[in-house]
């Protein structure tokens, strides 16, 4: 499940954000964002200009007001994004506050301490009804745990020492039994703590792409500063007057304030969207890397296919009635509690109406599956005149050995059926009764519904999917074809996974994988994006750079989409911001020159009312566009898996073409409005 995003106009978030917008005027904070810092300086200088001006004071006052608004709007955008992120994080943090933990001291005595004082390595005891004070590993006992606080899933889960289900998360609650937990993190280092710092603007570390973009924006700002500063001497030469407030207005219009003002909000909102999908990330860098993933490694079981194989077909041997095969198969499976065994009984019931019979009365003896015999079945002693029966089901080779030993004949038709089943991705189980071969049960992996379409989408994004499975090559190939993955690794051992990742990385590709077990830890650590499932071991969680609280193996696809959306939003708004400058030039340049060179009026293509109204309209548009784009910055530009070229064309037309045209309309409308209101 996903936590619902708070509405944008939720007053609980927007209210404090207004206050924060002012707090963020602190020059030390502003300095981190060069574009907005320059705007701030411009606002200050224009405000000073109100008092030093000899004419046009009303106009300069309005300019100053809108310049301040520009800065405040940008701060507001960041504050809103932060507020939403914090609200999400607070939900996750939940019960952690004021938890009292029972720490096991050196002498074995339990002492009560505050959860905040727990260090890595401390051992605590948690009993039924108590919250787990911090992330850790169960080292003793087993318990049911309610993890709904972080996953939203109401069904309790079992956490026990050893194995792959030993990790517990702080803030969840033990429902039954008592467990001993070794705390695995120091205060402030948990995933949740890191995630919270990712949604707090001030403490946030910029990601590599964000740094590069900031450099681009800063350099553009510097160039435009140069353009505006040199305009002063050029104007002196041309015997025209450009006042400082007008030059500042030009500068602020030219520097990319739209993206500069929204950049940090976009980044925070990206983290926030991850949180909404119940994913915790260790760093912004990892989130950004997800967008660059070229290869996705997926475990077959649970990710591509439903957990277990299921019987889908009964294929009788020549001369054997299908009812006889079904009957024998059902008898052999009645006591078989494996999911495969159960699925045979279910299929028999559904397809042939054979009900489960009470076989205990017949003194049946069940023969369980062992790795040595590789078969299971049931023995009926001779009773009431019926002959003794030995019904078996098992792998083809094992059964062949059995039939040979019994002196029976293994029909050629069965060999062919077995091959066909294998080739189609199923697992054939041969059913025998005594020395007679009755037929074959087709056990199939059921590929999850809709997964093929998702892989097709991934392919369009340029991401190759590789299925990892312990199955043999034939079966793996069939499932791979059915699920639509690009490649598969059959008969895979954990170390093969690591080797595959290394091989892909050596080819320059970025690899993502999702894992849960301890033996996944090296591969998770090696992968560029390693998502650990929350149900997994602490080792796996530490090795990865993200944790999926829902433990949903297909979550990676969503993570990749969120990351791409983050980058696309940045790129689109940058393009939009720079494209906006064209219209602003057409508004401001004629306005600046009109007084000295009335001949230039044809350049006033928007027919703006007066020089002052033109400049003011451009500045107002520049400020308002930030507010107008806050929803887009927070929501993100929609990502469509349609291939790079199509996305590029689409976004170029919308944000590049639209960026050129929209301000012409916007500035004209504002000009008409402020003229009608007699503001200039």
């Amino acid at each position: 499940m996903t936590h619902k995003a708070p509405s944008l106009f939720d007053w609980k978030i927007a209210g404090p954000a207004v206050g924060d917008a002012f707090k963020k005027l602190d020059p030390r904070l502003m300095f981190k964002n060069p574009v907005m810092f320059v705007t701030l300086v411009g606002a200050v200088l224009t405000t000073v200009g109100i008092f030093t001006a000899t004419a046009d004071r009303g106009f300069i006052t309005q300019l100053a007001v809108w310049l301040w608004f520009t800065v405040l709007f940008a701060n507001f955008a960041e504050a809103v994004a932060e507020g939403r992120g914090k609200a999400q994080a607070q939900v996750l943090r939940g019960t952690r506050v004021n938890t009292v933990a029972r720490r096991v001291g050196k002498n074995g005595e339990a002492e009560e301490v505050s959860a905040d004082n727990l260090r890595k390595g401390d051992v605590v005891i948690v009993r039924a009804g108590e919250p787990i004070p911090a992330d850790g590993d169960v080292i003793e006992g087993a318990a049911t745990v309610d993890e709904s606080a972080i996953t939203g899933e109401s069904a309790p889960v079992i956490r026990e020492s050893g194995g792959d289900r030993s990790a517990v998360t702080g803030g969840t609650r033990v429902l039954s039994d008592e467990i001993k937990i070794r705390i695995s993190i120091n205060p402030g280092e948990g995933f949740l703590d890191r995630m919270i710092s990712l949604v707090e603007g001030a403490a946030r570390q910029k990601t590599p792409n964000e740094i590069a973009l900031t450099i681009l924006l800063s350099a553009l700002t510097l160039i435009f500063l140069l353009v505006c500063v040199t305009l002063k001497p050029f104007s002196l030469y041309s015997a025209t007057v450009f006042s400082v407030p007008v030059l500042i207005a030009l500068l602020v219009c030219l520097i990319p304030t739209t993206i500069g003002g929204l950049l940090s909000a976009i980044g925070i909102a990206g983290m926030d969207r991850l949180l909404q999908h119940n994913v915790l990330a260790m760093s912004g860098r990892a989130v950004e890397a997800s967008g660059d993933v070229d290869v996705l490694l997926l475990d077959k079981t649970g990710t591509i296919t439903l957990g277990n194989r299921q019987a889908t077909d009964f294929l009788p041997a020549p001369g054997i009635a299908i009812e006889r095969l079904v009957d024998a198969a059902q008898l052999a499976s009645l006591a078989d509690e494996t999911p495969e065994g159960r699925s045979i009984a279910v299929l028999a019931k559904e397809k042939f109406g054979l009900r489960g019979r009470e076989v205990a009365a017949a003194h049946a003896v069940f023969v369980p599956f062992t790795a040595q015999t590789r078969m299971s079945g049931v023995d009926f002693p001779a009773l009431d005149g019926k002959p003794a029966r030995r019904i078996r089901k098992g792998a083809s080779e094992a059964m062949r050995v059995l039939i040979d030993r019994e002196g029976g004949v293994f029909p050629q038709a069965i060999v062919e059926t077995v091959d066909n089943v294998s080739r189609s991705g199923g697992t054939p189980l041969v059913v025998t009764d005594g020395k007679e071969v009755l037929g074959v049960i087709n056990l199939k992996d059921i590929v999850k519904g809709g997964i093929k379409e998702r892989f097709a989408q991934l392919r369009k994004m340029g991401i190759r999917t590789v299925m990892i499975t312990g199955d043999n090559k034939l079966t793996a190939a069939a499932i791979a074809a059915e699920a639509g993955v690009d490649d598969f690794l059959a008969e895979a051992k954990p170390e093969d996974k690591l080797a595959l990742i290394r091989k892909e990385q050596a080819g320059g590709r970025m690899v993502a994988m999702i894992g849960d077990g301890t033996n996944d830890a090296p591969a998770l650590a090696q992968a560029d994006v390693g998502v650990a499932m929350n149900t997994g071991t602490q080792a796996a969680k530490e090795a990865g750079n993200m944790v999926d609280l829902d433990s949903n193996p297909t979550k990676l696809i969503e993570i990749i989409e969120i990351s791409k959306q983050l980058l696309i939003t940045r790129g689109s708004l940058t393009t939009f911001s720079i494209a906006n400058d064209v219209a602003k030039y057409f508004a401001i340049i004629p306005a600046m020159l009109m007084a000295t060179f009335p001949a230039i009026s044809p350049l006033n293509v928007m027919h703006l009312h007066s020089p002052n109204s033109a400049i003011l309209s451009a500045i107002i548009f520049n400020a308002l566009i930030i507010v107008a784009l806050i929803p887009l910055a927070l929501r993100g530009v929609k990502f469509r898996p349609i291939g790079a070229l199509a996305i590029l064309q689409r976004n170029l037309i919308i944000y590049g073409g639209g960026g050129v045209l929209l301000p012409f309309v916007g500035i004209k409308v504002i000009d008409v409005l402020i003229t009608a209101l007699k503001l200039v």
Partner: protein
Amino acid sequence: MNSSGWIQLALFVGALALITKPMGLYLMQVLDANGKTWLDPVLKPLERLTYKIMGVRAGEEHDWRGYTWAMLLFSLASCVFTYAILRLQNFLPLNPQGFGALSPDLAFNTAVSFTTNTNWQSYAGESTMSYLSQMVALTIHNFASAAIGIAIAAALVRGIARHSTRLLGNFWVDTVRVTYYLLVPICLVFAIVLVSQGMIQNFLPYTKAKLLEPMKISVAKVDDKGQPVLDQAGKPVMEEQTIEDQTIVQGPMASQVAIKMLGTNGGGYTNANAAHPFENPTPLSNFLQMLSIFSIGSGLTWYLGRMTKNQAHGWAIWATMTILFLTGAVVAWHYEAAGNPIHQQLGVSFADGNMEGKEVRFGIFNSAVFATITTDASCGAVNAMHDSFTALGGLVPLFNIQLGEIIFGGVGAGLYGMLVFVVLAVFIAGLMVGRTPEYLGKKIGAFDVKMAMLTLLILAMTILGFSAWAVVSPWGLAGLNNSGPHGLSEILYAFSSATGNNGSAFAGLTANTPWYNTALGIAMLFGRFLMIVPIMALAGSLAQKKLVPASAGTFPVHGGTFVILLIGTILLVGALNFLPVLALGPIVEHFLTAQGKLF
């Protein structure tokens, strides 16, 4: 705008497209230290000998720092050498006219100008330079500066094509091979073709001819040092002279002109440059000279495609350049053909267009196209006076230079300048496809963006900074012969031309003053070397990166969308940087001319 012009334009683009691949293929061999050419039997021993004398180990490659240092050292040494010859030419041989030594500032300006492939000429060649100065001090740079430009471009292309390495090639090997295998042989053939068109090539003293009709002219008075004499107001003192005979220039012209065009140097043998009947005798010589300006730049786009194993990308760059060239050419042609409204009020036929300052032999079309080509590339040779173009017709050459001369561009310099825009376009738009921006499998990081933006910043800073300084300084205004917006255009053009290492002038500006010589010299140095260093750093950074294999999610750097994106980036960045000052110059002038005002 007549059909003959359209046909010539189509012929020109067709010819350019035809030579692109052969030139690119040849560049592949020349720029490979082990490349094979059919000139090997003759030139290989010479090449080996050169390395032996220079002490170059040809098998060794440099990282970006080593490459850059070698380039800087060579440029410095050759610049000092030229400066020395110019200062001492009166003591040196091959000076039949007995020209005196150049003043320190003029020698500095000239030495820097030729070292930086600018060939800005604050002097008139035929009345200042001895044959030795022309042939040795200046010609050496015509070859070397062109070879260096190509070498730097090759290093950048290698940086893009290679991966996980620091090595970018050997500067000495690249320069020597480009000179020996590419520039000299082509120039040899080209010079002979030019001679066949009537261009002169001799060592005769200038010919004196009696004028049929003596004429009176007024010229700036010069003192015995060759400096213009100024009055109290700082204006040059003019004096009247009666001219009875004409001095007809002679000398080794064809050999000079071949490399001047091919190497996009542009420094004329004569002051009239390619408008002089000797320097550009026939329509065919005019066509071939225009084609030769673009030839290496065009071939380099193919070289880029082949080296990066993405020929479609090479052609996309070529298409971008061609579209920008055609746009400029058509705009300039249109406004020149439309003519000057003031002329028309005086009774000049509308159909004649703006013939002011044009060589009648070439007319409107060939003058407009030549002006576009010479500023698309950083050539700077002219066959018409750009100063006399209409306001918007003259805006085209000026804007071309301010874009960074990336439309085929100066040999090598055009490609590396264009690649900076490619990196920026890929970075901004690359984010829009939802991946860390990649250029041909290389992830564009913060450092790369920093270097790319640095070159843009330096271009804008040098042009705008020096121009702004000049327009409010007595030294800047002193040289100005026109007032108002046109005067601004002249100063702006001078510093754009110097920074862009173009070398053409908007005339109307007396630039042979100590202030201008020095300021322009510094602008040329900035425009050349402060650009090359970040570009080499970019090459070094790209070479070290790992190669990411292309996939469906990769940003495509070929095809129409990419071309449109690249053109948009170039025009937007160029326009944003220079539109305000252009508005005060040519744009305002255009509207004022329409109202009948002259400057």
